[in-house]
Each structure stands twice: as structure tokens, then as C-alpha cells.
């Protein structure tokens, strides 16, 4: 569904993307993870036709980047940008009606999507009266009301409260189950672990690592075992031949109440790969 090969983008002398490659299959949720300034938003803007690339190849939904401005391409995309783009003086319903008409979507979709994000009662309310979280949910409604084949989400839950984040995650899971291909950028590792089938670590314009969250966590697990004793003490031992006897003993030692291997979080994997915290 999305094929990116040697993609480069420069702004003057600054190299925002230094030749990145990734593939996203149909119905997959792909997460581009990286700190601010790593090139995530630039990648989304290149894939949605807002920026022109400085080199490399892009193909989305069977269309190459030369044709990204065409209506036939745009009408199959859903985009949630990093900045809000709603008309404050208009009501929630007016805003969504505008986009429904632009996409030539059925009349009932506005109520349908508002119902899904729990905002149907706010349909007649002016956007200026909504909270940030509500606006973000309306933005998501705007992005999905035409049932796009590919959905691009740039930091969909950035700076949102946990309740709104949960509602957005639920809706994205529903879209994923319906077979929508989703590409999102985030620096929230829990979000990536929950939603993504595949992630790529983007750092300083280069993809440092890619794989499913589980694969990456396995790949970068430390070869250590933590033994927790009933008195609260924790002992960490290497998972090697040298400690084979000790580990076997621990299995039958009644004072050992927990044995677990060290399984890193996605954030820890990112730090291991790039040497930097994901903030």
C-alpha cells in the first residue's frame, strides 16, 4: 500500500530526510517514531503531496508522488495534521458538512462519525466553544468521514488528556479492524505498542530500526533474568551457561516468588538503538 525507497528531503542546506525506506501493507498500522525534529512530519507531508521530495521514490495506494495533487489520489486519503484546521465560527456540524460535500460522502456519515467519538450532542456547538480534546476528535471525524483507504495521522494524541486519548485509540482500533491502512507519527511509545503492527525509529532523518513492536522488544531484550525473593530482594543474573545451575535451583527454591526475563519497553529499545531518549 505504501512503498518508500531512498526518500530524501532537503530544506536549503538542511537534510531533513537522508534516504529512508519502508513499506506498509494494506490494512497495516505503521508507526513512525522519533523525537521532535527527526523528520516524522516531513515524511507525512511528502506522502500526502504537501511537500515535494528531493530524491527517492514514493508510491501510495498505487499512485506515485508525481500524481499526489490529483483528486483521484487525494479523495482516498484521510489526513489528521499536527495543527488544527477547523473553522472556529462554524458549528461542528457545519465543519463536517463542508468536508462531507467536498468528498461527496453520504449524508448520514456526519452523525455516524460524531456518534463514534461521542460528540453527536455537540454537533450544533461552535468549534470555538470546544475543548482541545473535542477539537482533536472532530479533526479525526473530518479525516475519516469519507472512509479513506489510507489514513495519515501526525501526532494524533499529542498533549491530549488520557480520556480523549483512549477514545481516539478506540476509534483507530475500529478503523484498523475495518481494514484501513494507517500511518501515524508519535513519540508516545505506549500508543505505538498498542496500535502499531510495525514501527520504524526515525532519528536525525535516518530510519535506525524497523519491525513489529514485539519483534523489536525481543530483538533488544537483555540477556538477564530477575529473581525476586519473598523478602523483597531482587537478584539479576546473566542468562548463560555459567548461571545455568543457579537458575535451575531457583525454579525449585520456594523463597523465589518471581522469575522474569528482562523485556524492554519500546522506549528503552529506542534509547538502545539511538542512544537518545524519545521526547
Amino acid at each position: 500500500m505504501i512503498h518508500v525507497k531512498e526518500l530524501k528531503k532537503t530544506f536549503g542546506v538542511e537534510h531533513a530526510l537522508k534516504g529512508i525506506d519502508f513499506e506498509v501493507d494494506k490494512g497495516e498500522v505503521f508507526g513512525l517514531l522519533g523525537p521532535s525534529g527527526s523528520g516524522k512530519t516531513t515524511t507525512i507531508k511528502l506522502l500526502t503531496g504537501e511537500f515535494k521530495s528531493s530524491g527517492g521514490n514514493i508510491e501510495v495506494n498505487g499512485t506515485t508522488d508525481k500524481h499526489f495533487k490529483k483528486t483521484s489520489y487525494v479523495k482516498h486519503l484521510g489526513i489528521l495534521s499536527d495543527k488544527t484546521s477547523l473553522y472556529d465560527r462554524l458549528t461542528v456540524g457545519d465543519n463536517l458538512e463542508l468536508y462531507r460535500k467536498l468528498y461527496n460522502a453520504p449524508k448520514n456519515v456526519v452523525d455516524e462519525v460524531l456518534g463514534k467519538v461521542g460528540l453527536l450532542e455537540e454537533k450544533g456547538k461552535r468549534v470555538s466553544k470546544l475543548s482541545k480534546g473535542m477539537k482533536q476528535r472532530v479533526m479525526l471525524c473530518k479525516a475519516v468521514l469519507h472512509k479513506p483507504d489510507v489514513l495519515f495521522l501526525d501526532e494524533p494524541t499529542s498533549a491530549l488528556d488520557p480520556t480523549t486519548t483512549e477514545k481516539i485509540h478506540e476509534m483507530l482500533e475500529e478503523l484498523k479492524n475495518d481494514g484501513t491502512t494507517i500511518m501515524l507519527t508519535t513519540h508516545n511509545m505506549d500508543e505505538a505498542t498498542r496500535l502499531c503492527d510495525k514501527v520504524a525509529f526515525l532519528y536525525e532523518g535516518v530510519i535506525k530500526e524497523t519491525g513489529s513492536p514485539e519483534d523489536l522488544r525481543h530483538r533488544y531484550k537483555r540477556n538477564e533474568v530477575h529473581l525476586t525473593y519473598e523478602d523483597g530482594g531482587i537478584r539479576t543474573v546473566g542468562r548463560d551457561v555459567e548461571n545455568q545451575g543457579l537458575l535451575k535451583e531457583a525454579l525449585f527454591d520456594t523463597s523465589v516468588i518471581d522469575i522474569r526475563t528482562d523485556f524492554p519497553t519500546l522506549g528503552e529499545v529506542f534509547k538502545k538503538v539511538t542512544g537518545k531518549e524519545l521526547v
Partner: protein
Amino acid sequence: MNITRVAAIFEKDFKEFMRNMMLFTSVLIPVVLAAFFGRMDGGEGGVPDEIVIIIVGVVFSAVTFSSMMTMMAEENEKDTLRGLLQSPASIIDIIAGKSAVITLMTIISLVASIMLVEADGFWSMENIAGLILLGIFFLNLGIGIGLLVKSVATTSVYLIPIMFLFGFTPYIEFLVTDEGHIARQIAECFPLYQNLYILNGDGGAAEYLILLAWVAVSFGIVIWAFNRRKSDD
């Protein structure tokens, strides 16, 4: 250009226009001005053509030019234009929808203002043709500058000189009394003077040609602004 999408943008912009006090009051400014000037007597039972044409200049600069520029600037400032451009709507659909709203508001403001000054012979075919060309010129100026202006606050930087130069051109007669002065000669080549000559009944092919030249210049400004914006992106 897609008519359904243009209609959707027209509907949205019409609602926005009616709820935006800054834009809505711009329609009333020429009407209030006309109500004030309507009490002046031109000596032959009507308001002088110079005054009528200045009211026309205020309509086109305050409503057509200023509203178009402000609407575009607000879309840029709030990043809503980006949202529209990410949809199937093209920039042509967006501008056509906005232009339709601005044209409607311009007609309302112009008709109400002219009714108040009771200008004889104003709605002649010759004058209407001149007004259409003048309207296109101001609309294009609004589109061109609106494409480049990033915020509503900066629109005033452009509004004052454009209003002064193109909306109040005949006022130069009060500032420069010497008819042969170079400033007067230059001003007489400006679009509003052509409409004044047409309204006076002194207009001929030359006045329409000069207006057409200004329209061509305004289209050039729009194309330049499009390209400048493209390269900025």
C-alpha cells in the same frame, strides 16, 4: 473546477462572512458613507459623479478587495486553507467559492449605496461593463495579496495603500489642484478614473482598454502570488 465543491465552499464562506463582524461591517461602511454623501447636492439635483465614484471605490476596496484578502489571510493564519487543500477541493474551487461570496456582498453593498445617493444613469450598460472590469481588478488584488499574507493583522499594511491609491483616486483633485501636475496625469490612468469618465459619459474605447490593462495586471499579480506561494511551500 467542480461545481459541487465550489457550492460547498460558497456555503461555508457565506456563513463565515455573516458571523465575522470585521467582514460583515465592511459591507455597511460604503452604505453609511453613501447615506452621508447622499445629502450633498451636485447643483443639478444629484450627487456629483466624483463623489459617486469614490463611493464605488470604497465598495470595491473595502468590500471586494479587503474582504477577499482578509478571508484568504485568515485561512492562512488558522491553517484551514491547508485542510481544504488536503481535500479534493482545488485552489481554483476554493477561490471560486470565495469569489462568489465576495461578489454577492459587493453587489449588495453597491446597490444599497447607489440607491442612497440616487445617482442618475448609474446602471447603464456602459457603466455596468466598466464596474465588472473594476470588480475583477479588485477581486484579483485581494486574491493575489491574500495568497501571500500570513495573518489578518498584516492585511492592514496592504489595505491602506490600496484603498488610498485605487479606492480614493479622484481625491487627488483636492490634494493637487494643478490639473497639469504629473501626479494628476498618472492618477488619471488609474482604474477608478476610467469608471469616472464612463459615468460622466466621456468614456470611450480608451477607458475600457485601460481598465482591461489593469485587469491583465491584476491577473499577473495572481499568477505571481500563486508561483511565489508554491515556491514557499
